[in-house]
């Protein structure tokens, strides 16, 4: 179906999944407030939230299969890229709630509204995936962030959780200031807030060297850099990921990052495409610094949650390579990578949540020594997730291809980012140092005699682990089908410009110089 977003009824229809999720979340908030907090009520609301997410997932999939699109401009995108990111985000939200139901039970958190906050955050993420106007990007980021600030401090009795929440809030609000100032300067330079009009203005006014536009780009980059935890704006991430309840950490590491990056990619590809010569250096260096700093610091971590936090920073660096490459293939590689990363991250945090003693947020890598001897399946699953994050062939499944396509995107980009591709590969090799350290501890070391037996995983946690591991391995065997989907539902950079008709691969942004 082809939407004309100037007609209000069709605009509403184009927003159907988002409205369904928001309306449903509000009803569930009432349900959560209906009864006194109790473990039972918390579970009820959790299962109801999972049901709502399934319905929204179905709606999005249905719209994607119909190849819904819009051929006009407008503030909302209706394209395959939006639907794919929506599906990844909804998968992440479902994983979070599934893990949180059992985690809350074990840690004695009875607030039923915790699940509803995940739904609100997910609706903000879906708005981010759809946003084609700076105003909508801002609203999406705030709907997502405000809910996640609260989620980080969910465990009210834990001072660590409160501290994580405060740090996330203060730095998040600080980043919002930069983001907004960037948007104001872009508005000042182009006179527009809609991305396709900004794109046209940047092209026709030759803004690639305009100081106001470039400062605006830079401030936007700082703001988004904070949100996706790219070095040197990553300082909050390890502390916040460490202090927050583990299912929420998974949500922040995977889904928040995926959604923020989706908006990042759309702003840069649709709005700033013709300014490539101006901003490419900035994203290039941001990618390199993020990859190097994240990997080097991750090597020294003793706490597995902090190690995974630095690993998530590193993955921001890899995704920045796709932003810098700025091509249609880069967006395909991006969606593929985000899916692979979300699956592996949720799997890994499901294992961390299981291994954590109840009521603590401390998780040492030393606790995993000899896990193979007491819980072989748990150890195997963790091995798959870590190898997927590392990008190991065969055993890492989809992770290897995700990284392979990113390297290809960098090499095939019009500007030939060979150096960036080389740094990506070298830093991936360094990352083996900390991923394989955990694998070695699990499989090759004896279980210490005084180590307590790890608690059994609940049904939902086990489901999350099995589903993510199975998808990682299965999609690793048949990656070409998934690539075909990501390509068909592809998001083309700058779809409303002459660049599309000319064919993007031939189009070299550097040639404009």
């Amino acid at each position, binding site marked *: 179906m082809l939407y004309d977003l100037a007609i209000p009824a069709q605009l509403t229809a184009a927003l159907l999944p988002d409205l369904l999720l928001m309306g449903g979340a509000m009803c569930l908030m009432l349900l959560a407030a209906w009864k006194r907090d109790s473990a039972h009520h918390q579970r009820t609301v959790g299962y109801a939230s999972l049901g709502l997410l399934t319905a929204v997932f179905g709606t999005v999939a249905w719209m994607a299969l119909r190849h819904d699109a819009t051929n006009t401009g407008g503030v909302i995108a209706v394209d395959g890229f939006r639907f794919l990111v929506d599906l990844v985000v909804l998968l992440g939200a479902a994983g979070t709630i599934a893990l949180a139901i059992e985690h809350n039970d074990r840690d004695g958190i009875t607030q039923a509204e915790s699940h509803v906050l995940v739904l609100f955050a997910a609706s903000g993420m879906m708005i981010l995936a759809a946003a084609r106007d700076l105003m909508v990007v801002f609203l999406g980021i705030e709907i997502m962030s405000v809910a996640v*600030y*609260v989620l980080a*401090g969910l465990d009210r009795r834990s001072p660590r959780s409160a501290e994580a929440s405060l740090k996330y809030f203060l730095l998040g609000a600080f980043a919002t*200031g930069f983001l*907004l100032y960037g948007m*104001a300067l872009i508005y000042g330079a182009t006179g527009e807030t809609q991305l396709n009009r900004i794109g046209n203005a940047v092209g026709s006014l030759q803004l690639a060297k305009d100081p106001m536009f470039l400062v605006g780009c830079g401030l936007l980059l700082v703001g988004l850099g904070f949100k996706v935890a790219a070095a040197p704006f990553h300082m909050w991430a390890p502390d916040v990921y460490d202090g927050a309840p583990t299912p929420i950490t998974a949500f922040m590491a995977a889904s928040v990052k995926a959604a923020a990056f989706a908006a990042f990619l759309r702003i840069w590809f649709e709005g700033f495409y013709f300014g490539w010569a101006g901003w490419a250096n900035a994203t290039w260096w941001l990618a390199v610094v993020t990859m190097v700093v994240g990997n080097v610091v991750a090597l020294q971590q003793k706490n597995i949650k902090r190690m995974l936090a630095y690993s998530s920073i590193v993955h921001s660096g890899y995704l920045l390579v796709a932003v810098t490459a700025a091509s249609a293939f880069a967006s395909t590689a991006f969606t593929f990578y985000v899916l692979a990363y979300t699956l592996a991250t949720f799997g890994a945090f499901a294992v961390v949540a299981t291994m954590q003693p109840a009521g603590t947020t401390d998780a040492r890598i030393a606790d995993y020594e000899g896990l193979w001897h007491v819980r072989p399946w748990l150890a195997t699953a963790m091995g798959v997730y870590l190898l997927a994050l590392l990008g190991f062939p065969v055993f890492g499944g989809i992770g290897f291809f995700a990284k392979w396509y990113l390297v290809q995107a960098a090499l095939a980009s019009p500007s030939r980012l060979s150096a960036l591709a080389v740094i990506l590969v070298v830093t991936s090799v360094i990352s083996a140092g900390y991923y394989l350290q955990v694998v070695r501890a699990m499989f090759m070391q004896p279980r210490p005699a005084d180590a307590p037996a790890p608690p059994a995983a609940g049904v939902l946690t086990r489901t999350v682990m099995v589903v993510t591991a199975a998808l990682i391995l299965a999609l690793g065997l048949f990656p070409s089908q998934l690539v075909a989907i990501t390509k068909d539902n592809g998001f083309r950079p700058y779809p409303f410009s002459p660049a599309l008709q000319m064919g993007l691969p031939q189009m070299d942004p550097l040639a404009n110089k």
Partner: protein
Amino acid sequence: MLAESLALSAVLFTIGVIGVLTRRNAIILFMCVELMLNAVNLSFVALSKLYGATGQVFVVMVMTVAAAEAAVGLAIIIAIFRHRQSVDLEDINLLKG
């Protein structure tokens, strides 16, 4: 007037940033962030004189979101005060490494 307004907005924004980077009290930090947001609002209003109403609509959005953020932010600051009897960031140091 446009240049003066934009310059004032830049100065206010910088004061806000310096405040966030140098002060250690969570409430004052939060006030500095609000100063940054309002500096941006000034830019938007000034620019909308040039480009039409879009900038003013943006300002209304920013104010609404800032209010929501303040509600959540102050609640978080109260939560941390209950744990530590202080909102000084020097005292908030459980998460490190």
